């Protein structure tokens, strides 16, 4: 067991390391001049050179790479060009907003998707099954940014009709459900379809297994069979997926944050890319990878603990 954990941990670190190098390389070949970015558009060429030298940007590639990796080891993600602040604190500051959105979004995905999936599984082949599947396919086909704008448009129309359930614009307040609900709902719609089908598939798988047949043969009531036996096994892959999705979301839910101007890491990442704020780009991509890799690690270890077969 320990060997497995150690192996997975080492692998995770290797992945992060590789990505750090790749990201650094990408930003190194960026056509834009970072010294010019810091200096601003009006600075004279000499002043730009001075800044370039002060930031160590005139060093050769490997020297800069080593410096960067060395700083990373101390959890120094660098200093943003556009915001005169260190990158890691900047990212962590946005983390709560993304965290809330991720949790709320996932919760809504599960709340919408899982019950539908369960009901579809138990009513397989009926109109309900088909209707549920059709609805979820439609939902998953609608691009989340578009759904987001439709929702905003609806809110705006309600606002015009003097129905102010949700705030229109305004600054985000932490843990304020009224602000959180709409972006979370947008996320929820996009992902619910996936959880619906996943739940349905895993539940169906379980319901076809021998032990279910045995239980039924033994005379156990259908309800008990489903909820006490089949479901407990079926929920496993779903929970695995939740873990993976959480890791993915914590790296920033780019599209939804952009649509709703949600001040999370995803929006920060997009801003940094649009302003070519190189250290911040690297920081957000690395952070996103860190979240995904960590989540994968936990999920794998958890699965390995629960199922000894999966210790490859």
């Amino acid at each position, binding site marked *: 067991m320990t060997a497995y954990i150690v192996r997975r941990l080492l692998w995770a670190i290797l992945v992060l390391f590789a990505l750090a190098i790749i990201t650094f390389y990408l930003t190194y070949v*960026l*056509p*834009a*001049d970072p010294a*010019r*970015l*810091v*200096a*601003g*558009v*009006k*600075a*004279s*060429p*000499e*002043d*730009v050179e*001075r*800044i370039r030298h*002060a*930031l160590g940007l005139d060093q050769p590639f490997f020297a800069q790479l080593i410096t960067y990796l060395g700083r990373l080891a101390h959890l120094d993600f660098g*200093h943003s060009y*556009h*915001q*005169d*602040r260190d990158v890691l604190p900047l990212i962590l*500051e*946005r983390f709560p907003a993304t965290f809330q959105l991720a949790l709320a979004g996932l919760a809504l995905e599960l709340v919408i998707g899982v019950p539908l999936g369960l009901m579809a599984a138990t009513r397989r082949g009926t109109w309900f099954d088909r209707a549920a599947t059709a609805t979820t396919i439609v939902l998953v086909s609608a691009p989340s940014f578009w759904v987001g704008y439709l929702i905003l448009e609806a809110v705006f129309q309600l606002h015009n009709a003097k129905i102010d359930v949700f705030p*229109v*614009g*305004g*600054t985000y307040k932490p843990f304020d459900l009224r602000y959180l609900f709409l972006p979370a709902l947008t996320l929820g719609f996009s992902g619910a379809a996936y959880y619906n089908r996943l739940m349905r598939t895993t539940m169906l798988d379980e319901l076809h297994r021998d032990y279910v047949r045995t239980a039924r043969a033994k005379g156990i009531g259908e309800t008990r069979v489903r909820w006490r036996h089949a479901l407990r096994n079926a929920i496993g892959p779903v929970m695995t997926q939740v873990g993976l999705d959480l890791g993915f979301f914590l790296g920033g839910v780019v599209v939804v944050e952009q649509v709703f*101007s949600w*001040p999370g890491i995803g929006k920060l990442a997009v*801003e940094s890319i*649009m*302003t*070519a704020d190189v250290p911040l780009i690297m920081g957000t991509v690395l952070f996103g990878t860190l979240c995904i890799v960590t989540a994968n690690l936990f999920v794998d270890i958890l699965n390995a603990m629960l199922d000894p077969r999966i210790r490859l």
Partner: protein
Amino acid sequence: MGLHWRGGSGAAVVVALIVSACSTTTSSQPPASAAPATPGASTSEAPSSPAASTIPQGGTLSIAWASDIQYFDPAKGYDVVSWPAERMMFETLVTYDSGTKLVPLLADGMPTISADGKTYTFKLHTGVKFVKPDGTVAGDMTSADVVDSINRVLDPKLKPSPSPVAGGFFGNIVGAADVLSGKATTASGIKAIDPSTVEFDLVNADATFLNVMATPFAAIVPKGTAHDASVVATAPTGTGPYTLKSYTKGQQATFVANKSYWQAGQPYLDELDFKVGVDDNAAIQQIEAGTLDLMGDTIPSGSFTQITTDPQYADQVVHHTLVDTDYLFMDASQPNKGPLSNVKVRQAIEYAIDKDNIIKLVHGAGVKADCIFPPDMPGYDPTCTPYSFDPAKAKQMLADAGFPNGFKSTLYTDTTDPDPAIAQALQQDLANVGITVNVVTEEFSTFLDRIETPHKAPLGWVGWFQDYPDPSDFIDPILSCATAVQGGANASWYCNKDVDALAAAAKGETDSTKRIAEYQDIQKKIMADAPWVPVRHQEWFTLVGKRVGGFSIHPVWQYDLRNLWVKPGS
């Protein structure tokens, strides 16, 4: 001054400084879909600010910005949010009145200038106090503080990186070169004669030195202030009317009145809040709802028509033509005898561009530009109208120049709205006369890099804002031989030695009437060479809350927040 950079959700790195011949009032002007008849006449009546004694004291106002404050350190800040923030807390020796005239501030009277124009002697006010954010007094300002402040800006070891204008703005001071190269820590040309007298010696006479001393870079900070912007940000200490009570990054900076401010009766407000990270759409909504008073950004194009035509907001829409020119530049020294190196081709292109359409695309937020200088810049010449919109003539001229079937080229611009849209409009204008261009949009810094590299962009759409209200600012950085080099901002690689000589003479000319006439002549000569097609001067439209008193768009500062008050009964 700077290349046009206007960010909606991104950080605006360029400061827009506006010059206005006449000062503006708080009353709004009707939304101008047609250009005003006279330059800078976005005001409808003469200014009539109430006498100081009747201005209500107290109250809190709030202003929203899309980007966060980048620096509280006057040596570093160079963007549209940092400058207003710095100007709340720091002051300079000279500044501008409500227009473009330089007046003394921390200096007691304008400086005496030697006959050769190389020595400036300032007498300082006494009793000016440096105040810390918590309100405690940190000492009186003396000449030693002035000397230290400027040396600080020159320091190449300033953290996190040197000042972006150390050489550009202050390099002309005697001894500055040694500081910049690290050979010295102080410049010999900055002298404290006595505790209330400072002398600056310049290498060359330069009429723009006082303008430089009015920029926030020349703000006076206490001697011994750390050479580190992050340290300064924790406790910015200056002489200004406000102090920084608190700052939550990404949320809000709260400025409160400086109780020990050296000028009595000011500031009028108790508190002014900078709410940062609020995008322009959200800001509009908040001003409409009355929860916000001012917005630092312009009215977004999606809501533009709706707000400017809504009679409810007629009093609250304030606009002003910026001291800026947006232009299509052409590579006048295109290698291999490219078509653009032929002046007749460039002149033909001047006739091909439909400027009215482009102004229409931006909903009328602009004034047609026929020449280089914007309306409020000294040197503006309303009679300078060398070219008109005449596609037939353009085609004819192209045929005469040897291009009856036009030619192919590429037009570059940045991705900031509305530049891609305008670039596509230009593309169609050029197609109409037979010139097929490919439009390439790049992220702004990439674009900047490209146009600063010789001949990498044959055609491009860009804008230039003033640094200070002097015509040399529109000629030397972007149209002189010296800047037609790698890293220079002369995107059309225009180099005319005769014009250069005239510009050098004009820069040192002391007779101001003669100087203006010389620059007007230079402008005409450059337009004959046609390195650019000037298209528009931007117009800034903003929505002002009902409670705000004393607001006007300042020619130089755009937002001069120091003199605001709360309207009584609101």
